[in-house]
């Protein structure tokens, strides 16, 4: 009955340790809430944090023994470990800023943390997926959890709008991805990335490059949606603006990083033989993403919406690194996503605290005179915004530097020029917030935000350190990225 069945080895289980821990953690959280009752909700956030730290440890342990797992479904290499650690850190920071927000909105619940953990599990799968089936499942786990999180405060109309928009458009985009996967299977007879690569580059196989390009294009629709790259960026501002602030913080960093991780992996392994076909399309997309993001952000008065457009713009910069299609490009994208995660979470942490109950103070003008009320926080905000601009000594600077360097190395001169011009434009809207904070008189409406809660404070410190470290000593992270950037084909 059990002929030639070899059960998975212990090391294979260790390679999926973070996923296991996250799943178990999420489940335990939900059960614990049921058992402990409503009164013990304060313990939920620390519990979620504990599981995330465990998973972080798990990811490190898994990373120490690289290799494939479960019939090559996953491959745990440096690249996977990098992104697993990144999304888990984003998860930790998001949970830190969520506690006080949820208490303020009277919406503390285990479901929230469980969904964050599940979503991270999906992203962790994405980071290590080596098979299009796993890509699809991972993407869906991550997305479905975030759809729900985006509409977490169900009595808030903005939340509902965000959730329904994200859900409908997201499902549509995923359908395209799945269709592309189906076609790829039809053409190559496999869904394993390496085997697709082997098939497409082997001289013996007969296939139509046109058909494969169509698959790549359909999968691009799915991925571009998830990373909010043009022309599929339309949902991003509405969703990031409408979702609860800590969820927006989470969504702009973790799912995006994971989607980029898998985007890069699929295109640089499976479709690497067809570079000349997809590169021009991605070129246009990268350019359009940067331009749309930055120019739309110029006109925003709502701080969340502005940060949303800025997130689109930053996706454009990462797209430049994707277009570069080189190891340096991969490393640059990794570095950029890490630094963006820190600076963006830092900025969102402050927004989360500042907007107040019911997210009333979301206008940029509401920030007037903030520097006088909370000089330290304002200084930190300035620091994050400067990093988002890309001022030297911040993580953002080196991120942009490496991205454009990799682009120049791949002879993408025009894209680089456009990117640099865009960064200059972007400086305007980030600086505007700084000007409002430091040089405008506070109005009666503002200043509602009280002392900063401990969780937010921790998250701020963590993000600030992250931005600082990446800005001053980028070499450690970059070296790791460079070493992991060589994806095994």
């Amino acid at each position: 009955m059990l002929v030639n069945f070899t059960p998975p080895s212990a090391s294979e289980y260790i390679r999926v340790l973070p996923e296991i821990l996250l799943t178990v953690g999420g489940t335990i959280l939900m059960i614990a809430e049921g058992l402990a009752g409503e009164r013990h909700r304060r313990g939920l956030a620390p519990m979620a944090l504990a599981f995330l730290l465990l998973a972080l440890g798990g990811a490190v342990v898994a990373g120490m023994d690289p290799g494939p797992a479960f019939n090559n479904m996953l491959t745990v290499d440096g690249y996977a470990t990098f992104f697993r650690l990144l999304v888990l850190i984003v998860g930790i920071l998001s949970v830190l800023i969520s506690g006080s927000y949820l208490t303020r909105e009277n919406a503390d619940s285990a479901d929230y943390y469980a969904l964050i953990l599940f979503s991270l599990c999906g992203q962790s799968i994405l980071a290590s997926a080596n098979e299009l089936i796993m890509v699809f499942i991972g993407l869906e786990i991550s997305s479905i959890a975030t759809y729900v999180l985006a509409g977490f405060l169900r009595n808030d109309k903005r939340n509902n709008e965000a959730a329904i928009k994200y859900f409908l458009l997201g499902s549509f985009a995923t359908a395209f991805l799945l269709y592309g996967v189906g076609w790829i299977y039809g053409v190559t007879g496999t869904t394993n990335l390496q085997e697709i690569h082997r098939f497409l580059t082997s001289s013996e196989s007969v296939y139509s490059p046109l058909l494969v390009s169509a698959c790549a294009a359909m999968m691009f629709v799915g991925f571009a949606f998830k990373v909010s790259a043009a022309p599929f960026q339309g949902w991003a501002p509405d969703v990031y603006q409408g979702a609860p602030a800590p969820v927006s913080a989470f969504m702009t960093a973790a799912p995006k990083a994971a989607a980029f991780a898998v985007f890069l992996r699929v295109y640089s392994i499976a479709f690497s033989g067809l570079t000349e076909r997809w590169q021009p399309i991605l070129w246009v997309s990268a350019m359009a993403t940067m331009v749309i993001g930055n120019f739309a952000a110029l006109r925003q008065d709502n701080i969340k919406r502005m940060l949303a457009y800025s997130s689109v713009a930053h996706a454009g910069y990462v797209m430049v690194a994707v277009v570069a299609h080189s190891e340096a490009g991969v490393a640059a994208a990794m570095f950029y996503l890490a630094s963006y995660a820190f600076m963006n979470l830092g900025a969102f942490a402050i927004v989360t605290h500042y907007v107040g109950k019911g997210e009333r103070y979301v206008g940029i003008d509401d920030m007037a005179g903030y520097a006088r009320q909370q000089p330290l926080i304002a200084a930190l905000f300035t620091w994050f915004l400067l990093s988002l601009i890309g001022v030297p000594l911040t993580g953002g600077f080196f991120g942009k530097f490496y991205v454009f360097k990799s682009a120049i190395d791949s002879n993408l001169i025009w894209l680089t020029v456009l990117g640099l011009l865009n960064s200059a434009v972007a400086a305007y809207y980030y600086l505007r917030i700084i000007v409002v904070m430091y040089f405008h008189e506070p109005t009666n409406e503002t200043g509602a935000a009280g002392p900063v809660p401990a969780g937010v404070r921790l998250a701020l410190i963590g993000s600030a350190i992250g931005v600082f470290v990446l800005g001053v000593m980028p070499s450690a992270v970059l070296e790791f990225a460079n070493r992991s950037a060589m994806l095994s084909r």
Partner: protein
Amino acid sequence: MLDTIFFYVFALLTIGGAIATITRRSAMHSALSLIVSLLGVAGLYLLQKAEFLFAVQIVLYIGGIMVLFLFVIMLVNLDQAAKERQFNRQWLLGLVASVLVGAQMVWMLNSAGVLSLPAAVPAPAATGPGNIEALADLLFREYLLPFEVASLLLLVAIVGSVMMAKKTS
């Protein structure tokens, strides 16, 4: 010969049902047309000697999902919806776009030589282990991880929908 006739019957059911699904005004009739379409697909599976898929298609899609669809349609008052315009104002644009994309796909498939492939030959009748056994082997050995992880996907979907449906305190 008989197979060919059956193929066209099922194909007709599938496509006709699908068209009726989007053109019927009453939600109930749309859902029923969808059932017809799904039945057609089930029949196509059967023609390909995929009995397991055939049965599962019927049990899950028609017996499970579509019955719940009907359940919801009966619970919700859709009279208002039936009176609204059925297609939004951009239907012409949508039609043009889908015809264009469709034509593009046909052109592409044609130039890739897919359309002129020989007709699909149904798999030979299974000798030895049937296709359920083969399917089980694949699912529980090679694709063990996706199979297990898919359950997490379902769990997330359940948690999400319960959360959305829960009464607000």
